[in-house]
């Protein structure tokens, strides 16, 4: 472990924690503009978090410690995920602890805990949300894994840092497998982050909500942590996408100058990506929950085809 590695690791975590709500605010702003509404301020998510942290937490009478612990676990998982994804640099001391498969496992761990917590109070909407979340999860998780495998076949590695280094150094050619994987990844990220067309982050309409149903019983600091974790998840997914499909600009080992440059590049990429996401959300309509399995199965198949293509064409 080098000193610079430790610095970039710390920088990554702090940046993820601080920037993640901003990304959410940015997307909301674009959504509002695209829908001809006046937008809330860019810093609205921070105000929201501050307000929630200040409020007292109201917990159901019979809720178990699992219910109170879950927000911290979910938050911890997402923070770790942001630490192991190479967002700024590929010289990360924590990265060997978890490769691409373990990263998917980490997301699954968070999902299982949030679903269990939603079932804990035993309300009808909580259990409904848990079921839907797990339904999306069991289709999205293998699809995400296949996307990552397509990239690992090219780099002959499942280590995220190696994948990014390999992909950043290849010649600028279009890999058919990566194109398919890119489409699949976009679909999976929409589903995993509760965006339109799978879920609507702005809705509380009982029968259609998924993510909101899961966290319905939470309030105060617990809710704040979960909202923060959700924005961290979106940040993590965006960074995975950028690292796999647009890896240029991420610093490598022993390159302090590149590390300095990596931050503005990342912010620029995220800003463009966020605007595109808002556009995508505005242009599509939310689909019925029964259609979601088909949507995700398509993503899964696309990712598998991507992997097949990469084997057929040899990378």
């Amino acid at each position, binding site marked *: 472990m080098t000193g610079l590695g430790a610095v970039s690791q710390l920088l990554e975590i702090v940046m993820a924690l601080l920037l993640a709500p901003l990304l959410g605010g940015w997307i909301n702003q674009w959504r509002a503009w695209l829908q001809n509404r006046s937008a809330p301020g860019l810093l609205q998510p921070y105000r929201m978090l501050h307000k929630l*942290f*200040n409020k*007292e*937490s*109201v917990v159901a*009478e*019979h809720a*178990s410690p*699992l219910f109170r612990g879950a927000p*911290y*676990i979910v938050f*911890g*998982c997402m*923070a*770790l995920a942001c630490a192991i994804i190479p967002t700024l640099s590929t010289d990360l001391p924590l990265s*060997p*602890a*978890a*490769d691409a*498969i373990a990263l998917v*496992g*980490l997301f*699954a*761990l968070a999902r*299982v805990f949030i*679903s269990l917590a939603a*079932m*804990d*109070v*035993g*309300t*009808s*909407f*909580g*259990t*409904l949300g*848990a*079921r839907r979340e*797990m*339904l999306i999860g*069991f*289709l999205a*998780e*293998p699809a995400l*894994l*296949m996307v990552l*495998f397509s990239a690992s*076949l090219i780099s002959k*590695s*499942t*280590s995220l840092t*190696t994948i990014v280094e390999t992909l950043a150094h290849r010649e600028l050619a279009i890999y058919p497998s990566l194109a398919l994987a890119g489409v699949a990844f976009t679909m999976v990220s929409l589903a995993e982050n509760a965006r339109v067309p799978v879920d609507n982050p702005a809705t*509380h309409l*009982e029968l259609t909500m998924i993510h909101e149903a899961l966290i*319905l019983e939470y309030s105060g600091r617990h809710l704040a942590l979960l909202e923060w974790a959700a924005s961290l998840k979106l940040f993590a997914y965006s960074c995975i996408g950028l690292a796999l499909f647009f890896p240029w600009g991420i610093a490598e080992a022993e390159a302090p100058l590149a590390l300095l440059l990596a931050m503005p590049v990342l912010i620029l990429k995220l800003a463009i990506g966020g605007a595109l996401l808002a556009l995508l959300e505005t242009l599509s309509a939310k689909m019925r929950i029964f259609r979601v399995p088909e949507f995700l199965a398509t993503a*899964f198949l696309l990712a*598998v085809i991507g*992997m*097949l293509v990469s*084997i057929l064409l040899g990378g």
Partner: protein
Amino acid sequence: MPPIVTAGGLLAATLWVHLDWVLLVVAAWLLIAVVGVFALRRLTLVARVLFPVGGAGGLALLGIALSALQGSPEVAVLPIGLPQLPFHFRLDSLSAFFLMVIGGISVGVSAFAAGYFRKGEGTPPGLLAFEYHLFLASMVLVVLADDAYAFMVMWETMALSSFFLVTANHRIVEIQRAGYLYLLVAHIGAIGILLCFGVLQANSGDYTFANMRAQQLSPFWASLAFLLALFGFGAKAGILPLHVWLPEAHPAAPSPVSALMSGVMLKTAIYGVLRVLFDLLQTPIWWWGLLLLTVGLATALFGVVFAAVQVDMKRLLAYSSIENIGLLFSGIGLAVLFSAYGMQPMAALALTAVLYHVAGHAFFKSLLFVGTGAVLHATGERNLGKLGGLIRCMPWVAWVMLIGVLASAGLPPLGGFVSEWLLLQSFLFSPGLPSAFLNMLIPVVAALIALIGALAGYTMVKFFGVIFLGQPREERLAQAHDASGWERLGMLWLAAGCLVLGLCPVQFIAVIDPVTQLLVGAGMGEAIAAGSWLLVPVAIERASYGPAIFLLGVAASFALAFLLVRLLYHGRLRRAAPWDCGYPWQNARMQDTAEGFGQPIRQIFEPFFRMERELPSPFDAAPHYRVRVGDHFWHWLYLPLAALVERLARLIGLLQQGRIAVYLLYSFVTLMIVLAVVKQ
């Protein structure tokens, strides 16, 4: 001379090898079994003395096996059985590995059983102790057997003792039927194994494994032996379509027995497959691997999809066992593929994944099964639809079970994830296979494994959530009591096993490395020596996983978040009624049921199920909804087969006239035919 006989005094004891100590543990178990017969109804003696002593035997076995894993093979000949046909025993690394699993699981399950068995549940406790310890001893001897004779005798003892354990509550008709089905499939499987040994000895008349190893079989006969072994051991393991007994027998048995059957007995079948494939046959052919892979994946997908829709908690776990067996078979298939193409290091990786999963599944599935036993005793319910909210009155069981559930769902940083990770790694490295067709297959297979793993997570959330979380679905559940001291001890041991397997993969793989060395001639030793906390199967830039760092990362963020929130803000908390979108009339019946949780799976995987539904009409005064999820294999395979057997039996029945004159005529005709044949 058999060493156990020559070892007379304490002095000689110092010269004992591992095998003698193992046989001593077996003798101790058999002694406990005999004592049990003489103390049929003395529950205190059986529960407080016999089972704990048996558990101590398991602990000793675990220690011996750990030490024997690194040692060289040891043999012994015991003059039991027929004259001129003694039992041969042999302890090598493969046997030692399975002894370790048997020992490790039996410690926890015996401790649990000490608090579990009660009076007045069918079979008297002393008899249960007899069958239980006989079952344990026979499993140890199956793994040690070094000739077909000893193997078959022990295999049958294992089947019979477990049959009597399954039918412990023999007055219930369902359990009788389940036991009969189990016995039937076990014996059909045993025929396969017997025939397999017959092929392996290649007309030499010598049924020792040493002779079978020396035989050079032609590809045809070797393939025949493989297929027979797959059939025979597959029937015991529960691969498709021989799985039908498993979801019947496992729920019928008392919970500690289900734990042993699912955790350990199914693994003896895996042992058999490994022994025949890699030790007795030695030169695998590539299509064996393909067949194993296909059968394994079909079994795994079938198992997990069915597990997701079950409403009986023990049936759910039984189907989940089918899933795990399927994963094990597909891993073995991959190891065979690699081995057939001479890629020994890759075969070692796949085989390590298999062995890891054998140990991992043994621990978490035993834990889950004994946990359902605690729930069953506390509530008297197996039906998920009548449970709920138990985390509040049974916090001990619930929290320990959570570890098993997470391990079973294949989540990091627990044991189930490590084996899944290793298996996926070996798939990712397989594009080096020299056959284009196989290479094309690999992504599809990896996708299926990922899907199966994710579905296992779904199933486990349903299992844990419906039993332990939410509100109690019945009034009396509020009075449920937590597990007793012995039960807690047993569960803690098993949970500790899950944790150790999850957090110390490098150390554990170093322990089991001699097994892969023995089976495929390559190990992972050098690759994993790179870092003691990082599991690095090939090279650090290719893949690495450090569960301890992983756990530390999540725990540190947890603690930091907790402290910072308290420090910067506050820790105020108010208890109130649940909000639930402001619905005023909330009751426990409005929660999602087990059926409801399985509904999406029923819809998506509809062709898998044979469903019978009774839907209420809008005008019903007392509407009721019923759905029965059946298995196609019953209707497509087993019922026609049973009908065929019945028809044949009826044809033979025509001969039966019940008049002595007719029977005399039969004898006369037979005699004439025999004479006519002999004369020529």
